[in-house]
């Protein structure tokens, strides 16, 4: 607790938003990818954010002990990305019989990446990143003001 934990909380936001940016960039880079190691076309990926739960060092190790669960209302440990999942929405079908990856009917399964959607998500991640940077700057100026109390 204290001023530095506030910076740590904002830093967790920064790394989560940066991961979201990485995933969005990957989606955009693979907007036309029809071959993947898993087979089939590239699938759009999404980052799952969750509130980070504080781990009480005194809590019992038994996972069935519900009393050890931190109160979600009191948790102020920031955010964490808990996973990257594939978007289950259907592929974009493009009719191109000459494409080497076209199916029997002449359709190519293109990735389910919508460039406009990715752009909007990117703006959202970028703005959230900036908001976290501002929070760190404010915490810093509060901290340096507190350090200057005994100067003068």
């Amino acid at each position, binding site marked *: *607790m*204290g*001023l530095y*934990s*506030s*910076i740590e*909380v*904002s830093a*967790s*936001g920064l790394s*989560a*938003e940066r991961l*979201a940016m990485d995933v969005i960039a990957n989606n955009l880079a693979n907007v036309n990818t029809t071959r993947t190691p898993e087979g089939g076309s590239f699938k759009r990926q999404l980052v799952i*954010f*969750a*509130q980070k739960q504080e781990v009480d060092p005194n809590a019992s190790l038994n996972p069935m002990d519900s009393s050890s669960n931190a109160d*979600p*209302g*009191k*948790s*102020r*440990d*920031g*955010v964490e990305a808990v996973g990257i999942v594939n978007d289950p929405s259907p592929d974009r079908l493009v009719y191109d019989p000459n494409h080497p990856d076209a199916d029997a009917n002449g359709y190519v399964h293109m990735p389910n990446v919508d460039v406009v959607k990715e752009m909007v998500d990117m703006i*959202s*991640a970028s*703005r*959230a990143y900036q*908001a*976290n940077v*501002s*929070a760190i700057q*404010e*915490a810093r*100026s*509060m901290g340096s*003001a*507190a350090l*200057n*109390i*005994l*100067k*003068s």
Partner: protein
Amino acid sequence: MGDISFGATVNMLKDAGAGAGEAQLAIANNIANVNTPAFKRTDVTFKEALAAELPRYDDSTDLAMVTDDPKQIPGGPNFEAQPFSVTSTLDDTQQMRVDGSNVDVDQEMAKLSINSAYSQTMSTLLSTQYTRIREAIQEKA
């Protein structure tokens, strides 16, 4: 730490600064979770508690210094060290986004800059107060 008191003002400003630090933590957490689905923001209130405890910071209660002249200032360290209470409440009153989150980033940014200005004001006041105390100790103005 009220035992060696440099005056009630110092204790009050210290608690105000601590409250602003807690509020900063809550606001930073709200901003960090701005893209978390179903996140509910936390609100920290300490100014009400501070106002309610104003009499506690008052120097002129039971153990004040004895004065025999109206020009003398009745002072005395009778500040009782009690844990200053900061209440954090989970705000689930309204929904801001479709995913169930209720963080309005503009509001949080406004709260952030208000809180920072408040905290820096408290620091400046505390600094001024210490300058006065130092002047009193060093017998110079």
